[in-house]
């Protein structure tokens, strides 16, 4: 059995997305900036895509900037808020402790350039607290940036409520919605979102394509200088095949969202209850306020990379927050942020199942993970110390 359970890392392109991309490559190869008909046909396609993307999040087409993906969108959003803030003497930014590195590393850079950063705790359930957000807001706060859904543990933040607080205090609100677009309903007006980042390959679109929504009234600052593409806010000839492909994928994702989420969350809960039978294990993140396809567990006494490679042998593609899988010394900053200590964070497993996951596949996943965990524990000196009472269990 082959099961791709790493959809939070990337997704398989949908047929509609592949079709739209290849059709564009074959037939609409003109440059949208060219004045002859071939170019203008491309321009038409581009603006049609912009309208469709904007409609999905209830924005206006002119509020959409096409980018190379989530990281670029995040970088541009933060730079925009920071530079605009500084003009008004505002140099304080609020974010959360478990943002994606595209946010955290950009914040580090801004900090070195004179900005002050407050990272809100995400607590054991992986959700920020609104009162803590509100009391962190200051006179000189120029930006609140909080992700819509976390990429590792899938927890969903109260975006509309965060937006309302930011609006009340006149602070720009950006959300990294890379894991959410195409998976959760988004309405930038109803949720008071000022800027939003998205990436096509997380919703069965192509890699290297994404978009940034910037509310009318906020002047976007360029990351890439050059030609007048994207109203002069993002230079470079538009990646039209990617953009039309992303649009096709997004339309399909949104059309099936409700039904897919109902199905996936049922399977998710089934896998969670199956894996909970493994002694000394724990679900990471809130059990309900999480993406429909996300399961993230810690298993005490073992290390994550071994779990992944053995699952791979059994045909299951998954991911881990262990240090060994990242080439870093520390395990996932997300797991540390929700209070998992190093010993336990190393032994984590993320399964992000797709829309087509079946109950049989879920049974196979549960049985395989149980087998792998038991096997790795059978020769782990840590597990021996724990079971012989020389060390205390952290996960009861």
């Amino acid at each position, binding site marked *: 059995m082959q099961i791709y359970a790493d959809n939070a890392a990337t997704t398989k392109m949908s047929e509609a997305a592949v079709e739209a991309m290849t059709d564009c490559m074959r037939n609409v190869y003109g440059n949208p900036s060219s004045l002859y008909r071939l170019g203008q046909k491309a321009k038409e396609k581009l603006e049609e895509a912009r309208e469709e993307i904007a409609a999905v999040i209830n924005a206006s087409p002119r509020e959409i900037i096409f980018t190379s993906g989530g990281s670029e969108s995040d970088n541009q959003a933060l730079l925009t808020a920071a530079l605009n803030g500084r003009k008004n003497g505002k140099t304080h930014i609020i974010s959360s402790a478990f943002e994606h590195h595209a946010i955290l590393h950009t914040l580090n850079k801004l900090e070195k350039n004179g900005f002050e950063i407050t990272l809100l705790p995400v607590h054991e359930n992986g959700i920020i607290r609104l009162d803590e957000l509100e009391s962190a807001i200051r006179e000189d706060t120029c930006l609140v940036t909080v992700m819509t859904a976390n990429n590792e543990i899938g927890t969903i933040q109260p975006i509309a409520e965060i937006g309302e607080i930011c609006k009340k205090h006149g602070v720009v609100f950006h959300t990294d919605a890379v894991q959410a677009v195409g998976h959760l309903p988004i309405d930038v007006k109803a949720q008071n979102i000022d800027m939003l980042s998205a990436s096509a390959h997380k919703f069965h679109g192509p890699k290297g394509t994404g978009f940034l929504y910037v509310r009318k009234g906020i002047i976007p600052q360029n990351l890439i200088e050059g030609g007048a593409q994207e109203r002069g806010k993002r230079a470079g000839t538009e990646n039209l095949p990617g953009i039309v492909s992303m649009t096709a994928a997004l339309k399909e994702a949104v059309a099936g969202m409700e039904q897919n989420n109902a199905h996936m969350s049922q399977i998710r809960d089934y896998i969670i209850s199956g894996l909970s039978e493994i002694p000394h294990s724990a679900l990471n993140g809130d059990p309900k306020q999480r993406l429909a396809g996300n399961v993230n567990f810690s298993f005490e006494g073992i290390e994550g990379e*071994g779990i992944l490679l053995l699952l791979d042998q059994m045909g299951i593609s998954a991911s881990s927050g262990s240090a060994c899988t990242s080439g870093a010394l520390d395990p996932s900053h997300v797991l540390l942020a929700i209070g998992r200590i190093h010993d336990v964070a190393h032994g984590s497993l993320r399964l992000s199942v797709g829309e087509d996951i079946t109950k049989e596949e879920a049974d196979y996943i549960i049985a395989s993970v149980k087998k792998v965990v038991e096997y790795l524990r059978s020769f782990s000196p840590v597990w021996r110390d724990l079971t012989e009472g020389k060390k205390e269990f952290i996960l009861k």
Partner: protein
Amino acid sequence: MALYSDKVMDHFLQPRNLGVIEDADGVGEVGNAKCGDIMKMYLKIDDDIITDVKFETFGCASAIASSSMATELIKGQRVEDAMKLTNKAVAEALDGLPAYKMHCSVLAEEAIQAALEDYQSKKSN
């Protein structure tokens, strides 16, 4: 290129000398759970010759493979020769490790050393 060589995957999927020696003559444990790697080596030594060796490892695939390979390299060797085992020899025998996994082979060397030192200190007592 794959992350790991075939040799590493072979020793990870079918570790040699896995387990415990209850009446070991030398036991060595190195590493810590915080960093994500712990290796424990058990030696049975007769007449200064390593007659049996077993290991337990908490860690990634390269840590498990490094432990497994290290046990193969020293089994049947004289104590003084086993003392000379280097991490480089372990990594080479595995057809190489990714640069950021070299510390796994260092840990294997240290675990063997620790077990041999335990044996020697028991012997001299």
